[in-house]
């Protein structure tokens, strides 16, 4: 049964592995307060961030767990779309997004402006020496 695939498989590979879903049911009017911001790029509908977390102890599973998270995320998006939810271009919450996530998937239409701000404020790209998302 595919729905149990990743939980069962990761647990079989690493008894310290865990998969956690964190659902965050904020108010439907959550984006009606405040002004425009880098995230979310679209404030026309409430989008709950929802975090998937995987923990494991075997370093040889690093690529497997990342693959599993991307697979689960893709499945969840497909379920939401099939449920009639308008999430085809819904932004991923920056603090939860997995490494390698395209910046467009987080900042949407704000990305170009953010790149211009980065170039103007940090022309030597000092912040590019740190971790995190690179503009």
């Amino acid at each position, binding site marked *: 049964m595919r729905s149990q695939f*990743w939980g069962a498989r990761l647990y079989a590979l690493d008894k310290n592995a*865990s998969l956690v*879903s964190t659902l965050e*049911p904020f108010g439907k009017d959550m984006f009606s307060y405040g002004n425009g911001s880098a995230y979310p790029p679209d404030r026309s509908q409430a*989008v709950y961030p929802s975090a998937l977390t995987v923990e494991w102890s075997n*370093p040889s599973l690093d690529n497997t767990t990342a693959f599993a998270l991307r697979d689960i995320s893709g*499945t969840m998006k497909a379920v*939401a779309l*099939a449920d009639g939810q308008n999430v085809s271009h819904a932004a*991923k919450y920056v603090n939860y997004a997995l490494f390698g996530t395209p910046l467009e998937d987080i900042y949407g239409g704000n990305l170009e402006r953010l790149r211009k701000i980065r170039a103007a404020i940090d022309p030597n790209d000092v912040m590019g020496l740190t971790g995190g998302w690179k503009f």
Partner: protein
Amino acid sequence: MLSVYYDAVPITEYSPAVFDAFVNQTKVSLSSELPHPGTDCECVLSSGERGFML
């Protein structure tokens, strides 16, 4: 040492279909195989299936 990865799943409503999918995607095993059977971590999906949430 434990390693941790996160990913974000933008959702506009935690409908029964979405909720069950979240639980199904992340549960470890059915109740007969629970690492700690009988704990309050057991759950019952709307489909009637029993599962385990970490």
